[in-house]
């Protein structure tokens, strides 16, 4: 079944912000940003820039009618720099001109002088200097300190995790149009229309009802447009407000790469303790999160790291400390997984290192410690409907792990210059915004008199197929053809006070709200059928494939007739409904509670081949068993898993953010920041939908699917590690992502003894 959005995509007819025909008189904005990572602005001279013909206005913080503040969780971020700058790319002024070229040209004529201050780029440095976003948070259970004494094996190490550029294909952008009553309408490429609305209102000194935000669709987001679409939309709105003309602001790719935040790099220290029979008894970890120059979503990301510190494993004694460190980089932000992947990478590193030092395969430890039904998470929640072992075991049998293992061993014994490595990556990911308040959504449904249906929710379509899922839900409830249902743009005047489309939860929250709305319409319609046909039992009325059945027999009514009749009988064909996830709560003082409606489980087996001469690798296969619940749309869910895996592999392998000590991003274009291309995708990618999984919290028992699969990609790191180890047993493996070709070659030969050297050793031993 083709998705309605995809039909437009393949014809290139889908409209994105940059594709909209602009209103007459539209002006163009270009953002002038800081060239240094930390300093005081001593002089800002706009005079030459203002002389460029076609320049309409140059806006600085002084021109802001309301508050110069865009911080969401913490109000710590200016829209436009005042007198200091804290990262390269920090917006200072907005040039508004008749064309993009003119705006760009004028920008190059702005003169600025700074008094440079020393930037901090390393999170541990920031910690040492007391530069923190929020005070450290600690999650704990049991008695870590004492339990180490009872451990047979204790391993400690440090782990480095790099960030990741979202590289949504559509860059950030917005068009703002002045509307009557001093208001503004903003077309924004945002995951969070309400955030744009409220921030624009604050900055422009308007009421929220004077700001309308409309979002048709996004050309990819991955978290990068949850909070960070806001500044550009607000700048366009500010421009429109001050010039009283429509203003369009689309970031050039280089500007987007330089100015926007990324997945957070983390540095971490851990200590893990295991019993003789490889049960993990204690785990202590400290995370240093590189938050960048402002809070943005970092505190929430940090929290999710804390919630995913033990991944899929039960550990009785845990102490996890997380520190959000303020540095002079662009504020880092949400990215698919939202801190979870970093938490998981550290525990997986710990298990891997422990296994190597004990001299066993890492999967022995992994399997032994998987969560079981009723396991208690260290944050208080009891694990229910646990599918960790089910997925693991299914993967082992379905993909014949034993034969994979044998063939890898055989390959490695036969080949000198090529080695294979395999790894397991189990995933357990909590679903719900960890901020309980955000778990709410609403939906608005109109049935028009011709029987067509219009659906509005808070969900933003960004490629994840949420629109199609909404169509699936409405057409299923009414049992009508999908083409009768249309999903409208996400608009703050139709659906208000929305949570952003994030945390994998848009289909859950909005789908449930939509389900409520459709069901209430359905009840009204059934009641009307009963009245119309003089039937006494509404329960036996059914809508099936556009027909109206009573006691399973066709009646004279069909969908279209029913709708017309309902309208004639003055029955409302509009419904609005609200959903708030039940059962969830979390006490931040105790750091205990039940924050997640449920968890998503799965297991991936990854196989790679390393070219030990050149230090390159190929991902041979990723084979997954994933817990989808009862899938709402097979093709979409499969796409989310496959796309997530490749994005996760990219994060672990080719995607390297290169920053210098002055806070400058050197991987600042697509020619230097490489994301997976078609050849980097695993040669084989198999996905099996776990059977018999149900989820009472998802619409039609489905489960959220957006983020969890990304973390299967972590398996690639350990598979490469294992292949490197097979070639060079002497290597002291570094747990530092990404595993680039450079790191591969260096570790293949680090401390390795050549054939000659080895034969010398053996002969001297003999001698």
């Amino acid at each position, binding site marked *: 079944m083709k998705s309605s959005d995809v039909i437009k995509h*393949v014809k290139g007819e889908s409209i994105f912000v940059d594709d909209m025909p602009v209103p007459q008189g539209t002006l163009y904005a270009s953002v002038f940003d800081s060239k240094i990572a930390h300093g005081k602005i001593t002089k800002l001279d706009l005079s030459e820039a203002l002389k460029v013909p076609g320049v309409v206005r140059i806006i600085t913080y002084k021109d802001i009618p309301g508050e110069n503040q865009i911080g969401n969780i913490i109000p710590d971020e200016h829209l436009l720099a005042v007198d200091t700058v804290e990262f390269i790319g920090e917006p200072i002024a907005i040039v508004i001109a008749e064309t993009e070229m003119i705006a760009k040209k004028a920008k190059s004529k702005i003169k600025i002088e700074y008094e440079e201050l020393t930037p901090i780029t390393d999170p541990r440095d920031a910690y040492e200097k007391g530069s923190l976003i929020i005070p450290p948070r600690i999650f704990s259970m049991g008695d870590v300190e004492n339990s180490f004494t009872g451990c047979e094996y204790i391993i400690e190490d440090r782990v480095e995790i790099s960030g990741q550029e979202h590289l949504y294909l559509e860059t950030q952008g917005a068009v703002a149009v002045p509307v009557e009553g001093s208001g503004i309408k903003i077309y924004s490429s945002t995951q969070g229309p309400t955030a744009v609305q409220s921030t624009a209102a604050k900055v422009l000194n308007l009421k929220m009802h004077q700001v309308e935000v409309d979002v048709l669709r996004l050309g990819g987001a991955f978290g990068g447009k949850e909070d960070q679409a806001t500044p550009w939309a607000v700048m366009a709105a500010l421009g429109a407000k001050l010039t009283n003309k429509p203003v369009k602001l689309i970031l050039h790719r280089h500007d987007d790469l330089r100015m926007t935040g990324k997945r957070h790099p983390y540095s971490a220290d851990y200590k893990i303790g295991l019993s003789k029979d490889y049960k993990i008894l204690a785990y202590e970890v400290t995370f240093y999160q590189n938050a960048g120059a402002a809070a943005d979503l970092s505190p929430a990301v940090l929290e999710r790291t804390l919630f995913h510190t033990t991944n899929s494993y039960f550990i009785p004694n845990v102490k996890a400390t997380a520190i959000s460190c303020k540095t002079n980089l662009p504020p880092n932000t949400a990215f698919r997984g939202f801190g979870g992947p970093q938490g998981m990478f550290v525990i997986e590193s710990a298990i891997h290192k422990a296994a190597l030092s004990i001299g066993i395969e890492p999967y022995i430890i992994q399997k032994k410690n998987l969560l079981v039904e009723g396991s208690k998470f260290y944050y208080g929640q009891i694990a229910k409907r646990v599918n960790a072992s089910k997925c693991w075991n299914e993967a082992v049998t379905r993909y014949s792990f034993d034969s994979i293992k044998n063939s890898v061993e055989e390959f490695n014994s036969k080949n000198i210059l090529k080695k294979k490595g395999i790894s397991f990556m189990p995933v357990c990911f909590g679903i719900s915004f960890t901020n309980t308040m955000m778990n709410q959504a609403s939906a608005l449904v109109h049935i028009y008199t011709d029987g067509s249906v219009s659906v509005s929710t808070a969900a933003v379509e960004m490629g994840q197929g949420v629109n199609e899922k909404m169509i699936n839900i409405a057409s299923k409830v009414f049992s009508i053809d999908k083409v009768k249902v249309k999903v409208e743009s996400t608009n703050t005047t139709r659906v208000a006070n929305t949570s952003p489309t994030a945390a994998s939860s848009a289909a859950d929250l909005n789908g449930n709200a939509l389900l409520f709305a459709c069901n209430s319409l359905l009840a009204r319609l059934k009641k009307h059928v009963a009245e119309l046909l003089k039937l006494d039992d509404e329960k036996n009325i059914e809508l099936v494939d556009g027909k109206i059945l009573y006691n399973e027999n066709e009646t004279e009514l069909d969908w279209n007739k029913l709708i017309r009749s309902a309208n004639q009988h003055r029955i409302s064909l509009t419904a609005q409904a609200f959903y708030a996830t039940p059962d969830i709560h979390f006490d931040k003082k105790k750091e205990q509670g039940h924050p997640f409606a449920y968890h998503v489980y799965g297991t991936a087996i990854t196989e790679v081949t390393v070219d030990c001469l050149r230090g390159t690798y190929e991902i041979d296969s990723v084979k997954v068993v994933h817990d989808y619940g009862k899938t709402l749309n097979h093709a979409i869910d499969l796409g989310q898993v496959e796309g997530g895996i490749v994005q996760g592999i990219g994060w672990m392998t080719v995607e390297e953010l290169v920053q210098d000590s002055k806070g400058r991003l*050197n991987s600042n274009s697509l020619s230097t920041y490489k994301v997976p291309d078609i050849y980097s995708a695993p040669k084989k990618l198999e996905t099996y939908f776990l059977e018999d999984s149900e989820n009472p919290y998802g619409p039609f028992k489905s489960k959220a699917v957006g983020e969890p699969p990304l973390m299967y990609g972590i398996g690639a790191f350990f598979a490469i590690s294992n292949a490197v180890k097979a070639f060079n047993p002497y290597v002291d493996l570094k747990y530092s992502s990404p595993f680039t070709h450079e790191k591969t*070659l260096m570790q293949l030969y680090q401390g390795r003894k050549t054939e000659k050297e080895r034969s010398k050793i053996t002969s001297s031993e003999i001698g």
Partner: protein
Amino acid sequence: MNKRKVQFLLNNTLISSEVNPSLPLLDFIRKEKHLTGTKEVCKEGDCGACTVLLGTLTKNSVVYKTITSCIYPIANCSGKHVVTIEGINKEDLLLQQEIFADENASQCGFCTPGFLMSVTCYLLNNTDYKIEDAINAVGGNICRCTGYHSIIRALNNIIYELKNNSSNDRVQLLVAKNVIPDYFKEIKERLSTIQSDKKVNTEKSSLFISGGSDLFVQKPDMLLEEEAQFLLEYDLSYIYQNYDTIIIGSGTTFEEIKQSPILSKVIPTIKNDIDLVASLPIRNSATIGGNLTNASPIGDLTIILMALNSELVLTDGINERIIKLSDFYLDYKKLIKTNDEYIKEVLIQVPKGELKFSFEKVSKRTYLDIASVNSAMLIEVDGNKIINIFISAGGVAPVPKLLKETNQYFIGKDISIDTIDSALAVMQTEISPISDVRGSAEYKKILLGQLVKAHFLKLFPQLINEKEIV
């Protein structure tokens, strides 16, 4: 700003406009013609979202190739057929669109038109469809959403639908198969009536533009303000052999090099080697003249041509002179040529005797990436003995480098691990890599050694023991 008249077919419409000849085709399509199906993502050739088809009239047919319109000067479209996604759309979905939709091979949709243009071009250009080739054809298209497997499934299904369909008239067949719209049948006729405004290089500018694939990445804004000479208008795209000399016009594209039967005699692995260079749409526009002159220390074609001991014919339009490629580079981006000179052609003496060639390249991402280090080797042996050898290396010095001392060391020696080891010690003295975004200096030093080992291992497996080489 200079303007000139450019005529070409854009989809089904004749364009005849006064334009800045250096305007990127993408800007014309999106901003002037408001055809928004073609997307802008990177504006530097690295993602394929802006891919369009460029059809050139040849004797018998119109030959289509993909180009990245974001870095393609509109002047180079003169007399051609430019096709965007709007230009293939019909009321109903085309076969390839239908299959992409069925496989859900599109999520956010931003990359999708680019993929479909690459696929359509592949279907137009080939008769014997193979999945590896189809993948290669979309190798320049980046998708951040799907993970590519749905796209590969779609490609397989498209090939399945179209296999065993041979026909003398490709266009006719593909129209019948619902791959392209009807009007493609008349394009040949229509192109032949377009006045191609060739040789309009009236101004003597020393800004030379060939494929533009480097210039439009480096200085797009400057190009709009300066007069330029469009070298493609001089018909410098050819490869032929004259006795013992192979002559390659400087306007020859990477893809033409890859497909050349003459060159494949000297470099039997040329197809695979050139596949490691850029992506198909870039290879379709990037020329060897541009590669040699942009003087990047890691230019792949430069490294290959250097190991082939090539010579360059330089001309200022009046006089010509010949110099050795290995003498062309003075220092970082400093060339021996004068400002008014451009490269007309490249000369290669066809190697005699028992010669072997190898090219190696390692980059962060194996495909569509600039090398961290690359190297080529041409070697002549008599039994085990090295008679002559040319090893070139990129990414290890400010200029693409012929490893003269290393080569000298090798000459006259027998191929063995010991010889290689000692030669590598010499090599380390003549390279000076720097740390940058493509790797640390230390890494590049080690890597080049590995690549030289790889040359020998590939060409002389019987002489080298795998176990001993590492």
